[in-house]
């Protein structure tokens, strides 16, 4: 059996505010609907409101499937949106707020990965495949039209011909 040793267990010296805080916390946990309703206490100006919305749309909801925290009704997403609002209200820039979440969840939390390093594949590969496919079609059509014109030797004209 474990004994609560004083070294790592600390009793709050001011019990009344502590108890109130815990009561408030319990109430919030007990009723998620209330927690959501009470959430936007932070007052932002219109620019910050727009920044908060834009940031929330960029960030992945960690407990959802490919959904932003702006679109997710989950409690974690609501709490993350609260953090965005608090940090913007405290004067942090959108980049700093974005970095706060990247520092904790990694690049994964960004629905649109940054175009650098390994991530570049996501941006470059579709274009490379498109260009490559286009080149194959152009070459194929040229050969086909040439062979249709009957200029080439018949043996080398068909793609399957060896």
């Amino acid at each position, binding site marked *: 059996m*474990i*004994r609560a040793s004083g070294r790592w267990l*600390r009793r709050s010296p001011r019990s009344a505010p502590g108890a109130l805080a815990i009561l408030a916390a319990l109430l*919030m*946990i007990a009723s998620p609907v209330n927690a959501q309703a009470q959430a936007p206490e932070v007052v932002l100006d219109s620019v910050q409101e727009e920044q908060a919305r834009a940031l929330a749309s960029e960030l992945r909801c960690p407990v959802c499937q490919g959904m932003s925290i702006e679109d997710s009704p989950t409690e*974690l997403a609501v709490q993350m949106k609260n*953090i965005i609002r608090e940090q913007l209200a405290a004067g942090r820039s959108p980049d700093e707020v974005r970095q706060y979440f990247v*520092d*904790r969840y990694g690049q994964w939390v960004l629905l649109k990965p940054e175009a650098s390093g390994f991530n570049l594949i996501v941006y470059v590969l579709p274009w490379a495949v498109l260009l490559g496919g286009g080149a194959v079609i152009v070459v194929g059509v040229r050969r086909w039209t040439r062979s249709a014109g009957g200029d080439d030797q018949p043996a080398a004209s068909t793609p399957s011909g060896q």
Partner: protein
Amino acid sequence: MKWSRAALAMVIAVPVIALLVRSMGNDPRIIRSTLVGRDAPPFELAVLESEVLQMQEGDTIRLSDYLGEVVVLNFWASWCGPCRIEHPALTAVADAYRARGVRFLGVLYQDQPESARRWLDQLGEVYPTVLDPASRVAIEYGVAGIPETYFIARDGRVAHKYFGPLSVDTLVTHLDALLAEPAPAAESMVGNP
């Protein structure tokens, strides 16, 4: 003609196969958290009341209280099925490794304390759990689903993050490795508030 086609096929296939082989070698439950290698985010949270552990309302636990010891920080909830699966392993290893300087701490994730209390009364409780209202500490740690467990070294740095139910073997492997690390120098432990 044949050779150029074969070369083209190789150029496309080899990177894809290499990527698959590399990914298959990884344990998907060991998540490369951005936190690994950095100081564990500090916190002070109210405990879940416990008669067994003699913890009452108003008691708090700070992560820094455990500095100098290996800490296993486990995010859990009573509604989480896999948490029930790993609970016997956590309690058994917590008991076995207490004397060697390993502290286990549960963090309740989006759950009602009453439900958590009933769950622990039913399944057993050998280490404390703290409450995390508004999931602030969970977000600080980048928790994306539970159970999630963080292994914190004696110098206060996050050594591993593990996603999913832990087994005794996995716990013991990680803990033995962390205990085998040399104890940190006293001055390097001052920075963590």
